[in-house]
């Protein structure tokens, strides 16, 4: 009898552990979806005189990457409001609808289908890499124009219908190593990365390659996975023991906040250096922001720089917080869509595929001065061309670096 219960239990534990990690709140998603749909509907009511552009957005509004998704939604909303007030795209107003994907590929595909039912003609999304790859495959099959503000994995824009505003992972890794090398920040580097995330692994790979060219020595390179992302003591000990002067964290802000806490408990204080996923760390609930003091990150946007002041002021007035670079990326993305649509003379009566073909041509012809880079251009593969910037957290705010 005992044996039977036990074997049953072991079988159950396997099934349980497989589902435990992926379970989420469908109710919340639906609620958020309905809200977004209602918002979209209202906007539609105002602009219902003529035909309108229907632009969809997808990103995590809840869950561990919620800060990104919310920032993108706000940035997109702000840009659309401005564009509509200034007369729209080619004289047509824009309607939008933003859906939550909880940073989950399956939910992102569901959100994409919901948006298609709503009548989406172009997609500004998705926000995070894994969902973006899943949605990208669907969008390619539909030949739907896709512009991701922040999906940085190489595969996010695998289809020729897809473009992005942010840097790709290899570009971020390369640029990080170059920045560290050229500014002589450190020579002994430790890396802690998430081996279960394309984003993290992709940046690490190109970072390691470029580090060799820069004469940087990688003294420890330790992984964690989504299932074991709370205990970083071994990874930190290894970096400390091998004398790392700088720890490179190509990961999302959530885990980074735990790493900073555990490092301070261990009295380990190297320079911590992150990429765009680190953006948002100051907004973690109950996080002691003094732990992030001195943290550096590579980001294409800073609230302090000249040229972003109007955007920052408008954003703060509308949402009460400082914009992340994700918001700036989404804002730029919306203006890139406008510029490309005007370049190619796109109108709302075109069908989805026809519009996509026109937009593809438009995107490669435009040159745009945006918040996340001056003179941004796009190549046919969908990659942007712009220069990265580094910021350092000083007294709880971002400070631009040379």
């Amino acid at each position, binding site marked *: *009898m*005992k*044996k*039977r*219960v*036990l074997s*049953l*239990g*072991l079988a*159950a*534990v396997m099934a*349980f*552990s497989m589902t*435990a*990690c992926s*379970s*989420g*709140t469908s*109710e*919340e998603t639906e609620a958020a979806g309905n809200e977004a749909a209602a918002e979209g509907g209202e906007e539609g009511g105002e602009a219902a005189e003529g035909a309108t552009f229907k632009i969809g957005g997808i990103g995590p509004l*809840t*869950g*561990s990457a*919620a800060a990104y998704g919310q920032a993108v939604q706000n940035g997109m909303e702000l840009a659309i409001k401005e564009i509509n007030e200034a007369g729209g795209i080619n004289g047509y107003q824009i309607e939008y609808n933003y859906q939550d994907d*909880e940073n989950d590929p399956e939910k992102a595909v569901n959100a994409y289908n919901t948006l298609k039912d709503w009548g989406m003609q172009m997609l500004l999304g998705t926000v995070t890499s894994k969902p973006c790859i899943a949605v990208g495959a669907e969008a390619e099959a539909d030949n739907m124009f896709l512009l991701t503000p922040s999906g940085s994995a190489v595969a996010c824009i695998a289809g020729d219908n897809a473009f992005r505003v942010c840097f790709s992972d290899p570009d971020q890794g390369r640029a990080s190593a170059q920045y560290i090398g050229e500014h002589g920040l450190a020579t002994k580097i430790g890396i802690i990365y998430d*081996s279960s995330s394309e984003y993290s692994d992709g940046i690490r790979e190109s970072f390691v390659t470029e580090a060799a060219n820069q004469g940087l020595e990688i003294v420890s390179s*330790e*992984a*964690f*996975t989504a*299932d*074991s*992302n*709370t*205990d970083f*003591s*071994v*990874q930190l*000990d*290894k970096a400390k*023991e091998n004398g790392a002067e700088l720890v490179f964290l190509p990961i999302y802000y*959530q*885990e980074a*906040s*735990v790493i900073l*806490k*555990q490092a301070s*408990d*261990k*009295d380990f204080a190297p320079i911590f250096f992150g990429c765009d996923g680190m953006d948002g760390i100051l907004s*973690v*609930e*109950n*996080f*002691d922001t003094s732990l992030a003091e001195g943290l550096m990150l590579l980001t294409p946007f800073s609230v302090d720089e000249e040229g972003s002041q109007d955007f920052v002021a408008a954003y703060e007035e509308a949402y009460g917080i400082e914009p992340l670079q994700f918001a700036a990326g989404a804002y730029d993305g919306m203006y890139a869509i406008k510029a490309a649509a005007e370049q190619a003379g796109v109108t709302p009566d075109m069908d989805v595929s026809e519009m996509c073909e026109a937009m593809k041509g438009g995107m490669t012809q435009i040159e745009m001065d945006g918040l996340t880079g001056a003179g941004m251009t796009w190549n046919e593969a969908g990659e942007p061309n712009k220069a990265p910037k580094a910021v350092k957290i000083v007294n709880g705010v971002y400070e631009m670096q040379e």
Partner: protein
Amino acid sequence: MMSFLSYFINGVSLGSVYAIIALGYTMVYGIAKMLNFAHGDIIMVGGFTVFTIVSTMGGSPVAGVLASIVVCTVLGVTIEKVAYRPLRDASPLAVLITAIGVSYLLQNVALLIFGSNARQFTSVVTLPPLKLAGGELSISSVTIVTILSCIVIMIALTLFINRTKVGQAMLAVSEDRGAATLMGINVNGTIAVTFAIGSALAAVAGVLLCSAYPSLTPYTGSMPGIKAFVAAVFGGIGSIPGAMIGGILLGIIENLAKAYISSQLSDAIVFSVLILVLLVRPTGILGRKISEKV
């Protein structure tokens, strides 16, 4: 050498948390003969209770810990009464599925109340780290408190079971429930006490877990819960020293595997060791030999 010691001590600390959780699993299994899969989620409830009292309402950490023990105990006894007691004579499978259901219920209620955004947990232990060997070896105070709590809890629990009437009643119910009833032992009451103790332990585990690894989400308890269940099986489910040894060994193996073999494969290594141990000793390290009754 210093680094080995550091990995080892961190492993003992992680293992101590597993051990405290595993004690809850093993007591409930030993006495009620059921696997309480909601145990991991009671840990999460304990964590959120402390978070709400200390970080949101600004109460003292001691009040937070006491409140979380009370909340978890009441929750554990309630779950037992509402969800498990009516199924006392049902098949083990039905009880198991109910337990999984309770686990999802707790997770989703927590999601509704707190949302899925992770929170940084403020450690309830605020002492400075202990420095040995001229500062080369730094042991955080949470680690020391965790290991000490684990030892105290195990001694107290062993004394409780062997020296008190209620403890003896638990042993009797675990030996033979029918005979215990005939001898005038209140079986339902005894099982309720077992759940109360198990859930109070879960609250303590929750506080220690979140203090050492300060990230709190509605899913915080599920992975440690599963690992602790493995630890309980590893040590011999039903045995209190077994849960302790299983938990600490699991923590040490996990950390050393991470440090010296591969940080990516550590979970795979932990579970492979479990399979090996169970092949050699099917009842776990300290498990009693089972003779099938005919």
